[in-house]
């Protein structure tokens, strides 16, 4: 089966794999994984890790807009599991099944990689933000000390005046 024919044959499994009956047709969980699989099948086995920037952007966008890393991973795992079941049923030729399984594994690994690297990047940002916060702590403490001194002075002056 040609690359494009293979992609078309897998595209047919979309509703089953993404459970669109339950989640709705518009962007059900794991859509980015399924789309990446179709791309991987279409280009026929590109194996450079993380090369699919569209997948990277889709995952990063989910993370940026508030989905947790765990949710993204869990969706990828569910899509992978359901796809393997669907492929067993839908493809008769073992060679075709192997092609899809290989592509699915590649995509699943890429998703994990993207999530892990995003988490590492977040840790770096958090570390930098913490340093900024700690610097502002020092400034705020200085301000607070000055304010306390001013307050003490003013209270003293006020007591003197009334005495």
């Amino acid at each position: 089966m040609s690359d494009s024919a293979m992609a078309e044959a897998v595209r047919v499994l979309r509703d089953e794999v993404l459970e669109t009956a339950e989640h709705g047709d518009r962007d059900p969980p794991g859509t980015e994984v399924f789309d990446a699989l179709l791309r991987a099948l279409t280009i026929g086995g590109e194996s450079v890790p993380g090369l699919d920037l569209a997948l990277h952007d889709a995952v990063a966008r989910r993370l940026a807009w508030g989905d947790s890393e765990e949710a993204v991973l869990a969706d990828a795992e569910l899509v992978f599991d359901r796809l393997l079941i669907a492929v067993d049923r839908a493809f008769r030729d073992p060679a075709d099944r192997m092609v899809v399984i290989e592509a699915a594994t590649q995509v699943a690994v890429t998703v994990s990689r993207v999530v892990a690297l995003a988490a590492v990047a977040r840790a770096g940002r958090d570390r930098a933000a913490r340093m900024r916060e700690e610097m502002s702590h020092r400034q705020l403490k200085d301000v607070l000390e000055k304010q306390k001194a001013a307050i003490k002075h003013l209270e003293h002056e006020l007591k003197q005046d009334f005495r």
Partner: protein
Amino acid sequence: MTQQGPIRIAGDSHLGKVRTTNEDTLIIERRVGLYAVLDGMGGANAGDVASQLALETIRDFVLDRRTTLAPRALLEAAIVAGSTAVFTAAQQHRERHGMGTTVVACLVVDPTHVVVAHVGDSRAYLLRGGRLQTLTRDHTIVEELVGRGLLTAEEAERHPYKNVLSRNLGARAEPRVDLLELELRPGDRLLLCSDGLYGYASAEAIQYLLGSGDAPEHVARDLIDLALRGGGGDNVSTIVIETPAAAPSSTQVVRTRGALAWWQSRQRFLQVANDGGLTRNPIVRGLLPHEAIELVALSLCQAIYHDLEKSTGVNVWTFAQNLAAGWFERGGDWKAVRGLIDILGASARSVVDDIRAGDAQLGFLLDVAVSRALIVVELALGGLLAERLRQVDGDLIELHTTAVDTAEHETIEMYELHEVHELTGEGPRPSERFIDRPTIPFLRPDRPITSSGESAEVLNAIGKTITIARGRLSPRAELVAQILVALETVATDNGGNFAAAVLAARELYGVRSVDNAGVTPLYDALDKARILVASSVHQIRAPQAIRVRVLRALSTAHQRLVGATTGLVLEAVGPFSERLREVQAVTNELHDAVAKAERLRADLERRFATIVDPSLPWGARGTTEW
């Protein structure tokens, strides 16, 4: 005149600066892959008649007989037929007696195979690897003498009969045709030309233009201009045939080239950003100009470079999220950030335009990379706003929940609902929020244990696959070897591959640092192991059905292992966020304390002012509490 398809062809011809008629003719017959330059000779307009007659005869012969003769024989027979036609015509017309034509022809059999034939002094050149080679030897009296060793090359150059032909079409009915079969390589360029080109242009100049990388139609035109600048004393004709350049070994090669080109242009990018007013943008206020350029423009430059080089997209996202955070900290003025993005976009595009002028492919690649970076920045800004909105939303929900809980508590007391729960055996269900739900299934203690459930035959085949994969590893790839062992363990574990995957991932993860240097090699090794396993499955001796099951089992194990590894990365990253939240809470407390002290100080100052200033009315000098 450019051929669409794998091979590009272009040709052109010019009268020259001296002659009044153009006796050169070209054959560009794409249907059959026939290309030729013919240079006619003979007085009283007989030269152009000869070349035109030969052209028609050769072309028609090839069109008619291409299915019956082999390429080499076809081209030779066609040229002989052309000569016969010219010779016959010359015999029939007294005024055309002595007319003739040279020919250099090329029959493209397929994109890698051509046949070149020539009679006379029109030439074929091959440019390969930047070097120009002459494929033909001129059929002139002088050249024949050089060939026999009777003249040196220097003497030939100065010889008075150097242009007198020893062979041409029309001198005799069946001339001897020199033939050459050539295997073309990717990027090769063939040039067919009349003596009007090489007679007025040096070989170095021809080599330079042919190797310029310009499109064939431009090269054909430029070569003619070259001959015209050299005097243009004869008709000049050129045909350039170009085989497609070698495809890069992978997309990654192109990306690496793009990354380098981008990085080499960074100074220009920074300069344009500076000129565009980046240092005056409100978001970078308080920074020295060079700090602002480094922090914003150079960071973007580095992010795009690293993403291209390493084929990941994480760096641009990190830059974008940093920029978004900085923007929010500086008040979140939309106009300011819009201006900053516009400056960065304009600067990047000017650099990309420069690169595109030299290499369209790299220009396209970088254009995409820059566009993506700018889109990512806007997405990150949107994401930050969404996060802030979600925080506000969460606070509102918490307030609402507190209010509802209070109301429910009163209701429960009223109806003593706990007695009902005791009777039914159900407890009050706390409202479950999405974020409370565990989402890494394998880390959940109640995750069902699944046995691999594979037959002994499959388990045996899994072992063989891993053995083959390990045999193909270099001894230094220890991490990949470790992963292969882990995969076998997970794939064959009867106690459930989730638990086995978590255990194996913990061993693999070890004590890695939580940064790119610590994490990336692990994922690279995981990917190598995946590729190795996939190829090794095809090498085991087993029925196809068994192979599918082996691949499936190992792929599932791989997915579990990678998922568990990522879970560990997330675990390791967690404390950074928690620590930040703690520090942020302290910041908020300090802000509150400062605000409270500020209010107190202002109040005291006001009171102090009213006391020390006697001009103020008594009532304003203090309250009754004093």
